């Protein structure tokens, strides 16, 4: 692999940057793979990378119907955090945050991790009480968290309007939270996996999943049949479509989650701020654009476009928090199809079909889970048994009743 360094940058500058090698190969699909992963988003690519790195399984293909990182991995707002309530979620998502902290060094690719903190606001006395309880639960789980007074909120974000329609009573911050560049995460994992020998095959849509005696055998794709020892589904919003091909149902609803960016301005917001009550969050990208997100559109959708009512609600909430932003123009608005589960906890692990695994139900929060999701799914595929960190995330919880309800516990709205 061509090592990225200051020296390689200098050397390539001498040839006008025309001689950089391709970051990953684009091979023709082989007839058989030990493991085939459906979906070349962050989760799929990370799974392939960890299969090769941790378990030495390199006869692996990652199939992608569009282009690499072109789904929710490239559509999210890049937020990374581990401020969950329940111990199962905390352990998993903090493992992911820890992996993010060393990702750039390990993959020799700058993912531009910026631990600028994530601040959650409270807009009433009662909500502040709830936030104190939540922040304490996070600390009990050994994760950093700090309750802030309104004065401290104002010091952190001078542009905020504390006396907005729902006045700000305080908040709590996880200082290790922040952002990392989403394209870089996808590209760095693709480059590292490809170096290990993983075949990343773009423009290859899976059209059917073949099983024999309750066990997956091969996949029909737009580029022919591919035999597979084991198959893992990592397709975000299309989880239900793929599960149907394999003949089982999953408790997910596919919805549009939209986001938008303003024109770039000088640094004016140095944290990620979100408000669960008025349902909006905003941060400033390294390019100076304000990155804004809100709630999911209310109805089932595979359209990958957001509706106007939710756009209006999100923008009006952000402008109430930061009146100064009303002068900015929006440059782009887009949406991704997210698969939401009833308890807003992901579905990971085995499926009713043997040797078929699933990593889905990520809802609106899969991006921050990419490294840990890949690490635990690789373990699960190799051992045919869920990794200890994701034991509670299996499909069977919907029958046993052991839900991990982060929707109620930490305000994950969707």
């Amino acid at each position, binding site marked *: 692999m061509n090592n990225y360094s200051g020296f390689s940058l200098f050397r390539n500058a001498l040839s006008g940057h025309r001689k950089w090698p391709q970051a990953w190969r684009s091979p023709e699909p082989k007839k058989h793979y030990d493991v085939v992963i459906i979906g070349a988003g962050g989760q799929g690519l990370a799974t392939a990378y960890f299969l090769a790195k941790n378990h030495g399984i390199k006869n692996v293909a990652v199939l992608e119907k569009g282009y690499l990182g072109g789904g929710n991995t490239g559509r999210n707002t890049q937020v990374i955090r581990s401020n969950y309530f329940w111990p199962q979620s905390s352990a998993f998502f903090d493992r992911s945050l820890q992996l993010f902290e060393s990702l750039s060094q390990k993959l020799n690719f700058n993912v531009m991790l910026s631990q600028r903190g994530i601040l959650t606001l409270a807009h009433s006395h009662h909500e502040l009480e709830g936030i104190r309880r939540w922040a304490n639960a996070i600390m009990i789980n050994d994760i950093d968290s700090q309750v802030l007074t309104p004065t401290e909120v104002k010091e952190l974000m001078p542009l905020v309007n504390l006396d907005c329609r729902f006045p700000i009573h305080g908040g709590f911050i996880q200082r290790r939270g922040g952002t990392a560049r989403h394209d870089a995460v996808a590209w760095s994992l693709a480059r590292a996996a490809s170096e290990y020998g993983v075949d990343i095959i773009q423009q290859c849509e899976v059209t059917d999943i073949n099983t024999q005696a309750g066990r997956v055998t091969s996949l029909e794709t737009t580029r022919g049949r591919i035999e597979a020892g084991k198959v893992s589904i990592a397709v975000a919003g299309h989880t239900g*479509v793929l599960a149907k091909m394999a003949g089982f*149902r999953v408790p*997910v609803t*596919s919805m549009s989650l939209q986001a938008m960016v303003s024109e770039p301005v000088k640094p004016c917001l140095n944290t990620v701020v979100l408000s669960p009550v008025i349902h909006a969050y905003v941060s400033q990208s390294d390019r100076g654009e304000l990155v804004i997100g809100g709630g999911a559109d209310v*109805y*089932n*959708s595979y359209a990958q476009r957001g509706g106007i*009512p939710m756009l209006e609600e999100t923008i009006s909430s952000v402008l109430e928090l930061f009146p100064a932003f009303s002068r900015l123009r929006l440059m782009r608005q887009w949406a991704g199809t997210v698969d939401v589960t009833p308890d807003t906890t992901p579905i990971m692990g085995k499926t009713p079909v043997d040797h078929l695994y699933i990593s889905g139900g990520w809802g609106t929060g899969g991006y921050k889970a990419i490294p840990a999701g890949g690490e635990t799914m690789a373990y699960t595929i190799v051992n045919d048994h869920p990794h200890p960190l994701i034991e509670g995330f299996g499909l069977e919880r*919907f029958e046993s009743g052991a839900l991990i309800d982060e929707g109620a516990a930490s305000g994950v709205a969707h």
Partner: protein
Amino acid sequence: MLQITCPYCGCRDESDFSFGGESHVTRPSLDSSNAEWSDYLFNRENPMGIHYERWVHSYGCGRWFNVARDTVTHEIHATYKMGEAKPELAPNTKSGGNDR
């Protein structure tokens, strides 16, 4: 913005209504197995194509009704009252085929 035709009030903007998820879900009998009960509680059709769903006219008459809507194009093919049978609809070509 969707334009939804309430069977009682006529065509109104989407912001008049609230969404109620999949329609025509039948509650299993009380002696059903855990698997059947879990399927009833949590699993939904979630099709890529025509979805039969419930809406309520929150800022109008307040009544529930059914909508047949394409989840890819968002085109509304029919609205009909609670208790009525699903309309038979031809697969939609615009969304690349119904019921995927």
